[in-house]
């Protein structure tokens, strides 16, 4: 066999850019980059020319102008003299409020339904399957509208709660009564009790909004109690590892968490301000608008169906051998659940659960259907219409939603990395 002494020196030919796999990917990427940049330049050029033609400029200065409109449900100080930027902040907080409420409620409801769907009880299993199929095959917008119609059409008027002296004398009950004497659901909104402090520490201003010092104090004490409880548990684990006997901790941890809190609340004079019927409407307490209630209920019922499926799939994904092995090791059923099944099931459940939270946040933009002033209603609604700055408003709104989404998916990725099975 003759071995070529001098392999022919490779010369670079232009056709190699297309036919040689070593260079082809570079060629393709250069072409893609050029196309992409040309596309962006074309869009930007069009935007500039269109803005010029309309006599508009691109700046966000309008955010500091007076907004001039009122918002029904606000979490921070706001009036129609505030700026558009503050209206945007109010909207963002409203979005986050309804999203957080719906996440909590949907998780609880979804877990209950998912577990019940796995139960061996035929009737309950069927009922839960019916629930899941009904809610996830029908648009969420319909559920929000139905909830809104329920709150505005079916709930009683405030005057139905009135008890007149004649009624009292004849022992006749009013047409409607409050739940637990504390919550009044009326067609003008739902009144819930409000936490009050008779020896309040007042508010401090954080520049943008005020925060109640009482709330901060409660949170600090609660966090301190939880931290102390954790230290106690660590200590108990250490003792258990050393001696084999675990010291009794349950009453100590209860005391550590709730003791200081109870003392603090007593010192601050904590009491609930109950709503009361005065005149034509309920006074006192916190009035939650019907639109918020409807959005919350609609999102909760809809998303709970998805969460139920996630929970069911997560528990079903754990092979039976795992629980059998745990029983063989002599673990009791509840410890099997806590130590063997749940840690594995959670790894399957949590990522899709978090993406459901993301969906709730995005679906909360349907607030527009019931007139709840969220980010979409303030920045992308009235502010946009008043100032006529579509480009700035929609871009800013997208940016804010994108930031929220990326934060949530960042949390999800961090969790995934923490619980990932370590493979080769």
């Amino acid at each position: 066999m003759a071995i070529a002494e001098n392999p022919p020196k490779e010369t670079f030919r232009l056709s190699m850019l297309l036919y040689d796999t070593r260079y082809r990917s570079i060629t393709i990427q250069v072409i893609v980059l050029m196309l992409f940049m040309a596309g962006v330049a074309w869009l930007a050029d069009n935007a500039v020319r269109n803005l010029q033609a309309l006599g508009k400029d691109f700046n966000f200065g309008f955010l500091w102008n007076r907004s001039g409109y009122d918002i029904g449900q606000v979490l921070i100080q706001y009036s129609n003299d505030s700026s558009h930027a503050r209206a945007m902040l109010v909207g963002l907080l409203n979005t986050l409020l309804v999203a957080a409420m719906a996440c909590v409620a949907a998780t609880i409801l979804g877990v209950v339904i998912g577990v019940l769907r796995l139960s061996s009880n035929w009737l309950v299993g069927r009922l839960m399957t019916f629930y899941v199929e009904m809610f996830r095959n029908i648009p969420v917008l319909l559920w929000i509208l139905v909830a809104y119609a329920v709150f505005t059409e079916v709930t009683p008027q405030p005057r139905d709660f009135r008890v007149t002296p004649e009624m009292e004398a004849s022992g006749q009950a009013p047409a409607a009564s409050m739940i637990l004497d504390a919550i009044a659901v009326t067609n003008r909104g739902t009144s819930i009790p409000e936490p009050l402090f008779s020896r309040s520490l007042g508010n401090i201003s954080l520049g943008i909004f005020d925060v109640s010092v009482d709330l901060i104090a409660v949170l600090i004490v609660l966090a301190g109690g939880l931290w102390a409880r954790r230290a106690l548990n660590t200590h108990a684990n250490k003792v258990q590892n050393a001696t084999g006997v675990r010291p009794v901790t349950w009453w100590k941890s209860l005391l550590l968490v709730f003791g200081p809190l109870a003392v603090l609340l007593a010192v601050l004079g904590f009491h609930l301000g109950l709503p009361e019927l005065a005149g034509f409407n309920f006074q006192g307490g916190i009035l939650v608008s019907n639109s918020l209630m409807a959005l919350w209920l609609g999102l909760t019922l809809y998303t709970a169906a998805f969460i139920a499926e996630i929970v069911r799939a997560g528990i079903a994904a754990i092979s039976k051998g795992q629980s059998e092995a745990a029983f063989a090791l002599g673990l009791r059923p509840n410890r099997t659940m806590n130590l063997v099944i749940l840690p594995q099931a959670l790894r399957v459940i949590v990522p899709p659960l978090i993406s459901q939270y993301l969906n709730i946040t995005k679906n909360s933009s349907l607030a527009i259907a019931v007139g709840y002033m969220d980010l979409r209603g303030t920045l992308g609604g009235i502010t946009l219409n008043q100032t006529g700055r579509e480009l700035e408003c929609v871009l800013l709104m997208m940016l804010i939603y994108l930031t929220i989404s990326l934060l949530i998916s960042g949390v999800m990725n961090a969790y995934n990395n923490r619980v990932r099975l370590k493979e080769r």
Partner: protein
Amino acid sequence: MSDTHAETVPYVRETMLPQLAPPSSQAGAVKWLRENLFSGWFNTLLTVLGALVLVWLAVHFLPWFLHGVWNANSVAECREAIAQAWGDGATGACWAVIRERWPQFLFGFYPSELYWRPVLALVLLFAALAPVLFPSLPRGMMALTALYPGLGYLLLWGGSFWFPVAVYLGFVIGYVVFTSLAKAGQALLAPILGGLVVLLYWLFLSGPVERALEAVIPLSIQSVPSNAFGGFVLSITIGVAAIALSLPMGILLALGRRSDMLLVKALSVGFIEFIRGVPLITLLFTASLLLNYFLPPGTNFDIILRVVIMVTFFSAAYIAEVIRGGLAALPRGQYEAADALGLDYWKAMRLIILPQALKISIPGIVSTFIGLFKDTTLVIFVGLLDPLKGITDAVRASIEWKGVYWEPFIFVGLIFFIFNFAMSRYSMHLERRLRREHR
């Protein structure tokens, strides 16, 4: 016999006794009840609670359904009829609103003498989908599938018969260019040049071609403007178009995201994450408010088309993520085997990787489609009349149907349920059919 035994072992019985029936608690309905409903105190409690829920639902809603009135011309007449039949204070459904206004829920403000066109389009849609969904049907039906986009467009929007013909001509030209170049040995140039020629034809030539054909043989049907669309015609049009377009786009995005080419990967990731990070409403807003800023001055194109494009982008990003999961779930050996066989990238993807990855992703893809179909209701927020809010509000705005809430919701919800439930059942059927292991 019996005698001998009787003498030796008297206690042995020699004839089999007939089998007794199982105890009544272990057979039939009683056994089933005990096992499925009352197997323990907790299960019994659940059963009782479930039964209470059922009774509560029946007591509160059944009369309302049973008292329903179908023949009436207004809500007031409905209430009168219910009060007459069931006494004062009785509540009942006023189905008359559905009976009276169902064409609006289904067709929006589509001209009523042309209702046959969307109906025919829907029937043809099922005929065109059938060979794709059920491989046992004759392959010749695929011709209809290929022709359907043009046919459906013509039936829904009307206008010149030559418009879809001129568009389809582009495919023919592209095919001719592609095959002739491929025969000449230009395997790589063929798709690029072919695509370029088609694009140029569509941009500059197809309009004149259409007008020339129309001038020679005028052939057109009455055209229907986009703002006449509404109700389920609108939902199904947007849903079907976006589903058909988003699957190929999603596949390409998923492949792009897993590509070795850094730039392609970065662009795909950027697109997917951006689209998934914002609510669909803001994208629809972009379509209705911002698109005019980003297109050359004076361009104005159809609002339904804009919405279809945005909904397509939206669901393509989700489908890309689903398919990426499928691609990642394939064992590495499959990729390596494809390389070892000497297949190039596209052949490896087409013949080995994608068939398996798509099979894994079916449930996710179908649930994305279901989500897409449900999301078509959001077009109300850019001024299109969706069946859920747009049409319902329009119906409720008339004096005779003021105050009707639940009946339209139930009707529209039921139709959505039927479509989506059918889709999810089909996906389960597909999963079973494609299952290769454990046969």
